[in-house]
């Protein structure tokens, strides 16, 4: 399906790390978990805009580097007592390549 954009190899992201994808609307953080699951979220913490890609990742969660909010990678929701959420993007891994849904990207741009 041509709606998916190849943004790089799974191997380009270390387990428990994140890397950025630049878009016209700001950066998206692409996370790879210890179990090789991949998630994509806006790189802005719902609290005060902290760059989530720089946090410490554990399980399917990321701890924001600024004030330790914990955000779920799969839902984008803040965990625990905190409230807020960050936009997520559908991504999938196929043959070792990470594919991002261009339509979701376009929708997000149109929405801004």
């Amino acid at each position, binding site marked *: 399906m041509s709606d998916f954009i190849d943004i790089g190899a799974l191997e380009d992201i*270390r387990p428990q790390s994140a890397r*950025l994808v*630049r*878009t016209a609307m700001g950066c998206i953080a692409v996370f790879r978990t210890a179990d090789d699951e991949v998630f994509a979220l806006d790189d802005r913490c719902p609290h*005060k805009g*902290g760059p989530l890609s*720089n946090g*410490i990742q554990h399980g399917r969660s990321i701890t924001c580097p600024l004030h330790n909010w914990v955000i779920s990678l799969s839902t984008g929701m803040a965990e625990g007592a905190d409230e807020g959420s960050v936009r997520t993007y559908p991504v999938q891994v196929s043959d070792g390549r990470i594919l991002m849904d261009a339509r979701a990207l*376009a929708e997000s741009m149109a929405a801004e």
Partner: protein
Amino acid sequence: MKQKLVVIGAGMASGRALEHLLENAPDAYDITLFGAEPRGNYNRIMLSPVLSGEKTYEEIVTHDTAWYAANGITCRFGEKVQRIDRAAKVIVTPKGQTPYDKLIIATGSDPFIIPVPGHDLPGVLAYRDLDDTNAMIEASAKPGAKAVVIGGGLLGLEAAAGLALRGMEVSVVHLMGHLMERQLDEAAGYLLRKELVGRGIKIHCSANTRQVVGDGKVEGLELEDGTILPADIVVMAVGIRPSVALAKEAGLEIGRGLKVNDQLVTSDPDILALGECVEHDGMVYGLVAPLYDMAKVLAKTLAGEHDAYRGSQISTKLKVTGVDLFSAGDFADGADREEIVFRDPARGVYKRLVLQNDRIIGAVMYGDTADGSWFFGLIKDEEDISEMRDTLIFGPAFAGGTPMDPMAAVAALPDDAEICGCNGVSKGTIIAAINGGATTLDAVKAKTKASTSCGTCAGLTEQVVALTLGDDFVLPAAAGMCKCTDHSHDDVRRLIRAKELKSIPAIQQELQWKSSGGCHSCRPALNYYLVCEWPGEYVDHAQSRFINERVHANIQKDGTYSVVPRMWGGITTPNELRAIADVADKFAIPTVKVTGGQRIDLLGVKKEDLPAVWSDLNDAGMVSGHAYAKGLRTVKTCVGTDWCRFGTQDSTGLGVKIERLMWGSWTPHKVKMAVSGCPRNCAEATCKDVGIVCVDSGYEIGVGGAAGMDVREVQPLAKVGTEEEVLEYISAFVQLYRENAQYLHRPYKWIAKVGLDWVKSRVVEDAESRKALAERFEHSQTFYRKDPWAERVAGAEAHEFNPLADLTQVAAE
């Protein structure tokens, strides 16, 4: 006038007896205590965890100098009593005579050394006291070292397991057909053997020793069948004999041990005795539970009250982490005896009860010992079990088919069920202590002594407390590091050492982490512990570091970074200043600020610019200031003798030397230092983690200061005469802190926990320890004293700074 009480032997028995005596009759005696070991009383049974690395000596001390002093006891440690002169009522040591009105003999036992040829070679060890333990630990430090342990009983197996955990190749030689034959039957012995073999320990049963071989020192052990087992040390753990030489020579009545009556009085009415050296009613004991019972009675006798000791029932557990084994009573076969056996080979569980006249007389359990204390209670009370015979083997938890949860099982225990075997504490005693106002686990332990000896009942004690207190029960703060584990920071550090765990997944696997990958609070701590424990060997795990340390710059509120080049001792040059100004221009850095630590901070650098900024600063000869690190930050200085009219020493020069020595080191939390040239203290050295104030005669080193959320003044560590000494003392101090403090504890917090005296005993009073610490620091520094910026400029971890993809050109459709 007070009577003179002299005590021979500063071991577990006399320690407990003195405690009771001071409770019962605090003012009755002037007490003098003699001990052959050059130290006070420690929990001897915890030598096994010390050997395996799970505890340190300091943690097993039961009575320290302060305790003896507070109770007015005169201590003569390191002084062996040579003779008792009953006629003159004095005891004799190499330093002279000491008179007594009453005398307690508590000399314990002597380990038995089999007199085979070669038994006196250096490297043949017993396993009895701290010196033996330290000798074993020392031998295990040699790579590839081998040990042979003779004796497959409790002591021998604890020694073998401990040495194996220390990385030695260990063989056990045992005369009998199966291990621990006095406590276990063959089937349980088989399971135990399988477990130990699985841990890499070689077991030779039915094997007899012919001789220890070696030229000038131990090289191996030869068995009767001619087999030679190579060895660097041979540990003999084949049994003990009551230590009665003194008593015998003094003409006291001796059997297998020093004979005492029910009041613990020997054949001389002024001489009492207790512990492993005595024989009571034909019995000699080798465990602590009986001697604690004796201690109570002996204290009563000395206080002039009447009480009687009637012998003790004993049970045993093997203190090898991960091996559950319980044995009590008599389990030999016999015509009038029946048995109930339960086996679950898949789980490695074996239980056997020996019955006689509808009463349990023996119990052996392997793999699942949860019901041990319940069975032990039935044995002691000689309870008739015919009513519950059908389900007996399943223990008290069994009710109608499904086992209850462990709490319910504890709830089901009767009040007189024994919880702590060593100290003879029943469930009822614990409940009474709680009703009497002991509302925390620690208070209950202090009051009842439950789980303060061998510690295998700690969980059970906690359950009883939790059950009784209900919602009021709060687990002690020393509990888990985080929600991923119940282990405390201290436990984790010890186990990393003892089990040689060298990666985060290895720790999480071996120590049974409850989460799959840890969390943001335990992972950075584990990463630090590994960096500290295995310098040069452990590969740093960047994903477990906070972003500041991952990218060697401080993250700021808007997601940009700040960069601080190192200025050694606060000294800079026009060239460096020019380079800083150029970098600020070139990268449009909005703010240039002088920090509280006398360095220059460039604020507002974009993450992707970091490598280029560093590259320019490196070109001007500057390296990372680690202003972001849990490590050495800065050494602040004043101008000292170079310029100041008050300066007594070259404080700037010393500051530069310290910073060059310490930079790049990783520590549990940030470390700040300062050097002031005189007591006017312009560098504010007295509120730093390490502060040096120069004086005419030398250097005053203070530690544990802070000026953050808590403001603290340093405490004096030492005063030294030369710069070299300053460098050695502070290296040793920092290394002690690195090796012992909990992650994120500043030195002042850590010192508050361990005590400045302890720190001084390691860093100041013991020159050898100081040197060793300083050497370990230097060894670690050979790997970490380097510039992380240069490595990044050279391309390390480049992925951190470059985007994965650029989709700015992908237009909205």
